[in-house]
């Protein structure tokens, strides 16, 4: 399948510190449009931290300092005066533990649009239906939109969170280990969903599960101790990786 090869995020020379500790060292690589880019690597090696730099959620950590260039559509998102809220509308995020609001399914999805000032009932209804359909959840919940989101199963809640993110019509969806809290069937459903979604959205996914990265991603970046050891086409990384460390990690020779 032909990839568009348009670069959505261009990261150059990214260094990140939590206080004195350096969590990311000289990160440099591009993320391409409408592809799934997987970030793999052992725990605590900076993958999630890196993901959060893409939508500036690291701003919430007081001791976090960043240097370097993170460009989103050729715009440096860390420049002074950057509209962070606008950025987060275009770069959505799905978290490891499904975190729907304790509201109804309907209210969860319209939360984002309402915060933007969208009020019309017809428009909101349409957003709800489209988002739930894109998240492969519509058929299961269309008759109980007013029920609490917490009454859904774990897998359904996660798809709801995806729908909620999609409702904002983002360009990029960041996913931080979205299936690690789910059972295999729910995981498979979400993987299928991701493969569908990449036709319309750029997806960056952090995963502990290498088979998952192999199954669904187009490109893979291997993070180790805050650095990128290797970045390339998934088929290349999983068949003939360039770096010995990559080989050792993905064949499970070390954890």
């Amino acid at each position, binding site marked *: 399948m032909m990839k568009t090869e348009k670069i959505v995020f261009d990261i150059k020379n990214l260094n990140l510190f939590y206080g004195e500790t350096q969590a990311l060292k000289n990160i440099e690589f591009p993320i391409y449009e409408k592809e799934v880019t997987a970030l793999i690597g052992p725990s605590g090696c900076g993958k999630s931290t890196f993901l959060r730099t893409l*939508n500036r*959620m690291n701003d*919430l950590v*007081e001791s976090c300092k960043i240097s370097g260039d993170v460009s989103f559509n050729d715009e440096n998102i860390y420049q002074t005066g950057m509209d962070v*809220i*606008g950025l*987060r*509308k275009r770069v*959505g*995020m799905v*978290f490891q*533990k499904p*975190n*729907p*609001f*304790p*509201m*109804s399914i309907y*209210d969860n999805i319209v*939360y*984002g649009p309402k*915060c*933007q000032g969208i009020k019309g009932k017809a428009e909101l209804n349409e957003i709800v239906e489209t988002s739930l359909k894109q998240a492969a959840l519509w058929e299961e919940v269309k008759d109980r939109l*007013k029920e*609490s989101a*917490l009454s859904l199963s774990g897998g359904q809640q996660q798809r709801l*969170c995806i729908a*909620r*993110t999609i409702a*904002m019509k983002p360009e990029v969806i960041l996913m931080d280990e979205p299936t690690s809290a789910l059972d295999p069937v729910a995981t498979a459903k979400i993987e299928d969903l991701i493969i569908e979604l990449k036709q319309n959205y750029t997806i960056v996914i952090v995963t502990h599960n290498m088979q998952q990265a192999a199954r669904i991603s187009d490109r893979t970046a291997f993070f180790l101790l805050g650095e990128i050891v290797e970045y390339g086409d998934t088929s290349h990384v999983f068949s003939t990786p360039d770096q010995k460390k990559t080989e050792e990690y993905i064949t499970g020779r070390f954890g």
Partner: protein
Amino acid sequence: MSMLSKRKINDGIMTGITYGSSFISLVVLLSIIIYVFANGIKLLNWDLVTHNFEAVSYIADLKDGTGPGNFTVDRDFDEGIYYSEKWGVALKDDTNLLGKNVVVVHYVHPDSPFKELNNKGVGTVDLALTLDYEVIRIAFVDSASALSVRGSEIMIAILDANDSFRELEFSTTGGGIRGSIVTTLYLIFFTLVFALPIGVGSAIYLNEYAKNTKFTRLIRSLIETLTGVPSIIYGLMGLAIFVPLTISLTSATGGNIISGSMTLAVILMPIIIRTTEESLKVVPDDYRYASLSLGASKTQTTFKVILPNAFAGILTATLLAIGRIIGESAALVFAIGTAIKDQVSITDKSTSLAVHIWAMMTDEPANIELSTTIAIIILMMVLILNFTIKILSKRFMRRYGVKA
């Protein structure tokens, strides 16, 4: 003794202690309730709630042209009620709201001369002897007065024995706590109006916006300390600050309800801040992350997601506050004063129910029975308020789709 049986005995002792403590707590609580009810139930009646406190006494005489006659009635009066056919009035013995023995009007014949009387003192010219008024003294021209201390039977007998009439001394029923109830309600309202926004707002700032510096930690520990300050000190502060403040801003001339509310608000603020902060802390960070990552601003996140979720905690804070307001007496003695009022104005002195109890108890002699009765009424008020707030909040939460 084997290890197993030793441990069993230990377990048994510990369980026994826990059971015992619960039992003691239960006994203590029940004792208080039983004491209050047993003592107070006697004086409990609707009039207490609706009547004024001040009993007004009047001295009246007959209007010209009226006098004794023959006022027969068809029915028989019950035992203990004495009717004078000559004057058309029935009296009986009773206890008033304050617990004193009095002679009370039971029935007045429509044609009785007592239906329309002249006021010998100042004030409205026309008076009438109506139901439930206390008759204190009936004076006659030629003979000795009939005094209420002798009882209603004797009074009626003397009445019947006399034709000339000099004057009648009677008084409206008093001892009601209506004024104090109204005051208490005003207090609750104004205190909450002052305390809730400031308290909840501060809690939101401290928990959501403030950075964790030495300064904020200092503020927090100060607030914690304030919760332990005895309320009488706040009363002094109220006297020193709020009373002059309200005097200069409004038509108040001394302690008043507004100044009392302000004082109470200050007492309650640390508690409200603490409780609200705790309930804000409990809201999972997951919700904040989710909201922010959807492109909501911090303010939107705080007010659309965090606050509704902390609602239960804020509700608890409110109920605690109400309880404290109703029960607070020491501070109010200074900040509002101890004058029991019937016409309640927010810029004037008044008493809350608790202060009313205090006033009753410091009276000579201490009126324990009435105090316990008022205590019952307070308990019922608290119950009703709690209940109402719980129902209202359930509806509110359902409307916003927030799960309890």
